[in-house]
């Protein structure tokens, strides 16, 4: 099924794009990650110009997060209070990200920066998650009780001034911590064309120390609003949002997200985290190889 993309200026196989959307939607519903970290590189690999890929993937992530967020909202899995603080940070972050994007693009180093960010962030977080979930799985298999966590959240978080109560997360911490976290993911969303969920979920778990049952829903809630801001930012500045491409991705991802959310309720959280860790490490490894090996394309063209 050939579909012509009016902004990307090329014909693609519509079914491939829908399938790609379904895959990332599944991840979105299961793990609360946007799935953008897979969509954007795969679209670029398929021949879609990088800016169009990043801009359209953002609106695809919006759709996937809505349907995932609804699923989690129904079972009370969103801390709206925490979510609002994260969103405020995230919107600030997209603005900063847009400026950084333009600067790096002018320097011609945007690809390298994106690749290094992928390797460092995905590699670090994937490794952390894999280690944690393997320890947890081994502990539960041996029948031994899981050792109690020594601390609820990172000492740096505790040292920040101002304290708010976040009831659903079961936290009494400074709102500056989620604000900064939201800002960091906002910057990454704009730079890497990703939802930032793969950063947000582990950071909420290990840095903020949020309750496991609200992490995925709240992360989706934040991603939803930040990707909406990103789509607007791209529509106004780069004019690279391809509505046809986004629509095709959406058809797949909104359905995938629903299926994923149902899986998530049945599976063990440790197993889910291990699977996510493996996917994340795989992408990081691929990117690391890409940096070291001679790339397929030595030359790249950008309009002046």
């Amino acid at each position, binding site marked *: 099924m050939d579909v012509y993309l009016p902004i990307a200026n090329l014909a693609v196989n519509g079914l491939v794009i829908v399938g790609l959307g379904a895959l990332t939607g599944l991840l979105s519903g299961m793990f609360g990650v946007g799935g953008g970290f897979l969509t954007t590189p795969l679209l670029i690999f398929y021949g879609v110009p990088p800016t169009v890929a990043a801009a359209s993937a953002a609106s695809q992530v919006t759709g996937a997060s809505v349907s995932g967020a609804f699923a989690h909202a129904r079972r009370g899995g969103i801390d709206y209070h925490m979510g609002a603080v994260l969103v405020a940070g995230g919107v600030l972050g997209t603005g900063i990200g847009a400026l950084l994007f333009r600067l790096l693009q002018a320097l*011609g180093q945007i690809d390298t920066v994106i690749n290094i960010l992928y390797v460092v962030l995905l590699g670090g977080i994937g490794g952390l998650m894999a280690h944690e979930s393997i320890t947890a799985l081994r502990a539960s298999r041996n029948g031994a009780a899981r050792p109690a966590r020594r601390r609820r959240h990172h000492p740096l978080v505790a040292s920040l001034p101002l304290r708010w109560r976040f009831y659903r997360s079961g936290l009494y911490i400074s709102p500056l911590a989620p604000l900064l976290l939201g800002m960091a993911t906002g910057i990454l969303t704009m730079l890497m064309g990703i939802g930032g969920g793969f950063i947000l979920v582990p950071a909420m778990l290990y840095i903020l120390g949020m309750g496991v049952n609200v992490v995925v829903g709240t992360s989706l809630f934040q991603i939803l609003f930040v990707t909406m801001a990103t789509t607007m930012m791209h529509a106004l500045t780069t004019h690279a949002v391809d509505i046809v491409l986004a629509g095709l991705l959406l058809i797949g991802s909104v359905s995938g997200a629903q299926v994923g959310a149902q899986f998530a309720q049945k599976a063990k959280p440790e197993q889910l985290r291990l699977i996510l860790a493996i996917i994340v490490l795989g992408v990081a490894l691929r990117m690391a190889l890409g940096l070291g090996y001679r790339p397929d394309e030595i030359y790249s063209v950008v309009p002046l």
Partner: protein
Amino acid sequence: MALGPLWLMAGGARAPILVPEISQHQVEVRQGFTGADLLLYGAILDPAGTRAAQDYDIVVVLKGPVQSIVLREKSKVAGIWVNAANTQFRSAPSFFALASSRPVRDIVDEKTAAIYELGLDKLQLSPIGVIDPALQHRFSAGLVDLMARQGLYREDGHGVAISGQVLYSARIALPSQVRTGTYTAETFAIRQGRVITSAVTRVDVTKQGFERFVAEQAAGNGLLYGLFAVFVSVGMGWLAGRLFALV
């Protein structure tokens, strides 16, 4: 729609008459566009128009709108591949396809090929700034190689068929990712290494219907377009949520 042949006499009064034509002067980019196959054909006659011309070689060049580009080159710095060098070209064609009855190097010498831009290595890219020739050559070759692998630059040394020394035809495929704009198809009649005559026709590649509307809105109406994109994505996500809640 034919703009008519433009005459360019290079061989004096005895130049043959070249009548070029193209299968379509309008290429419409609509939903389902997967590229277009253009047939460039025509006839070469002697000035009296009474009989076939003698042995001529025909070269057909289809060229897309030119664009100013930055070309970046990766090289290995401290163990990783980064964009290290770059150069700017003011007039890189977005599409270039050359078809000839024999390979160009057998038809004309280097100098003539350079004058008429006959060949992928003879493109006049107008580099901006001062560059040494060796470096410029490397960059041009890199650009040509990149565009060739994307199907946007092509050279076919046996792409023109001449029948009865009168009629010639060449088939050039436009891939789906071509840029919109005015394309020029230039036909050269060459004899004994000299360009005897040439003629130009034009092809307009334009977006039509829905595709045109989307492209215009995205470029000129960013706010509404962005809001619509957000509305669609939220709406579709919400709809899927409702539908699956019923299941």
